[in-house]
């Protein structure tokens, strides 16, 4: 056994001998772009985070004072906290709904599955700016259909725009709505790749539909679920455009997410050095989040 395992590896280097030029040419554009638009900004961002740079040529090095100011900056922490709340509320909801949609769309008993798949995809076509607009329109306090319906049932209209927690609910719903289609697509592929013979065997053993779902489907699609959670977390941290048109982070600054905070300090107030320090803190948090998720994934036997 050991011998046969070793053989292909020995052949491998010979096969690709002296093929340096072609891969270099193929990969060069990507490497150049990667260096200019990722490594360089990350490096000067790191440098500026130790300065009071405001976009002008004159600036001085201020050491760690940006970081110590950031630690005491209530606005920064509240935007960071709101972002995590947003992720914690929207990601599980998104996973459940997109998985449910994927299960129904792949269920042979449901009628009209092809059309349903297409209709589910409509939100994917809507840009974040227009998503925010649509939900703002539906949840308008005086004119929105949601309050009209609530009143139609005899309830009191809710303050969707001026109550910070209700505004947050709208934000979560809009985010879930916008992200569902793509995750559904990921889940559909995963569901179709679960071995059908496992279901047949379980049926023979008398497992009901729910038991089959919990014991066969969920473990079978675990790597995809991991992917959806990871992409959802990253998407939540990036969220900006949709909030801009939904409520601009309002009422007040209560629903300001962290990218908006960086945007406002870095561009509206031109405190680039300070905003860079915030970016660096966020980068560290992101690395930790992704390491934890990768560790969890590996422990669960995913890739």
């Amino acid at each position: 056994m050991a011998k046969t395992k070793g053989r292909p590896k020995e052949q491998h280097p010979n096969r690709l001998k002296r093929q340096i030029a072609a891969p270099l040419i193929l990969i060069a554009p990507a490497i150049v772009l990667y260096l200019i638009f990722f490594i360089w900004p990350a490096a000067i961002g790191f440098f500026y985070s130790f300065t009071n740079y405001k976009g002008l040529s004159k600036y001085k090095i201020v050491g760690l004072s940006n970081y110590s100011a950031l630690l005491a900056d209530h606005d920064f922490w509240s935007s960071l906290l709101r972002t995590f709340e947003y992720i914690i509320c929207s990601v599980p909801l998104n996973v459940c709904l997109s998985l449910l949609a994927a299960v129904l769309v792949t269920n042979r008993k449901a009628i009209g599955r092809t059309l349903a798949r297409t209709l589910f995809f409509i939100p994917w076509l809507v840009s974040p700016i227009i998503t925010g607009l649509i939900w703002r329109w539906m949840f308008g306090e005086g004119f929105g259909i949601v309050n009209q319906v609530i009143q139609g049932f005899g309830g009191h209209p809710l303050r969707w725009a001026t109550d910070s927690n209700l505004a947050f609910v709208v934000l979560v719903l809009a985010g879930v709505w916008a992200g569902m289609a793509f995750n559904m697509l990921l889940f559909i592929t995963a569901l179709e790749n679960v071995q059908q013979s496992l279901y047949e065997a379980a049926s023979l053993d008398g497992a009901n539909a729910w038991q089959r779902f919990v014991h066969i489907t969920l473990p079978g699609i675990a790597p995809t679920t991991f992917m959806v959670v990871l992409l959802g977390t990253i998407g939540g941290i990036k969220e900006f455009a949709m909030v801009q048109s939904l409520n601009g982070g309002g009422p007040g600054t209560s629903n300001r997410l962290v990218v908006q905070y960086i945007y406002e300090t870095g561009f509206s107030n031109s405190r680039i050095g300070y905003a860079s320090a915030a970016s660096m803190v966020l980068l560290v948090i992101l690395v930790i989040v992704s390491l934890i998720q990768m560790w969890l994934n590996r422990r669960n036997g995913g890739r």
Partner: protein
Amino acid sequence: MSSAISQAKDAPVRSSNSVWARIKAHGPATIMLWFLVICFAFPVFWLILSSFKGADELFAVPMSFFPRKWTTAGYAEAWSRIDFARYFGNTAVVAIITTVLTVMVSAMTGYALAKYDYWWTRLFFIGILLTTMLPTEVIMSPSFIVVRDIGLYNSLAGIIVPSIITATGIFMFRQYFLTVPDEMMQAARVDGCSEMQIFLRIMLPISKPCIVTLAIFSFQWRWNDYIWPLLILNDSKRFTLQVALRTLVGAEKIDWSVLLPASVISMIPLVLIFMFCQKYIVGSDVDAAFKG
């Protein structure tokens, strides 16, 4: 359940029985599916309905579900007030050029990462992996300074060039080319093909499904992009559609009767593309792209 269906097929005579069996078999799943579909399609449906209402009817109490009087006055007003031709043009230029470049660079890089195994290709792959983890939005102020310093501020090129490389695109092609057997390259080498010829004449043509899927995705990303155009573009003549729409949303008093039709108009190009390329999106094997 499947036995119920086959029974129904076997005994068409007992029609009332078989109809009942069919309803029992298909009913619950179908009802749940369509309930969910209605929930998800409703917001866009409501946007479209509202866009055909007159300015006076939009805020009328009690509200009517369907417009009492269908009018396209809002569309005419939106079209005359917003320079759609210009914004469509700008956005199309950005989306098309970026998409072409993204597909080219992603195919080249993905192929090299899949088929040439060196320490530096592996290192670069880890770098790309990190990019998905760390979105560039987070470091936007230094990124902006870089774009400004290389002289791309306030130009469409300033949006196009930084968005060319996407981790997703590179992953997609890498995963795709990993499934292509190395023997194909070997055979081509024996036949005297150079490495670049192998890529251009053999590998690119067989990766067509990948090319189409990434092209559609990339076009959608760029059409709906907001943050980069917002940062880079200063001159309203160069605005893309999303930035132009945002200036309307950001106004002190939103003019809904114009904004709603304008939103519908802005979605038309993507809807058309979706209609023609649906099978490549809804049927695509996107999972492969994210398995890394």
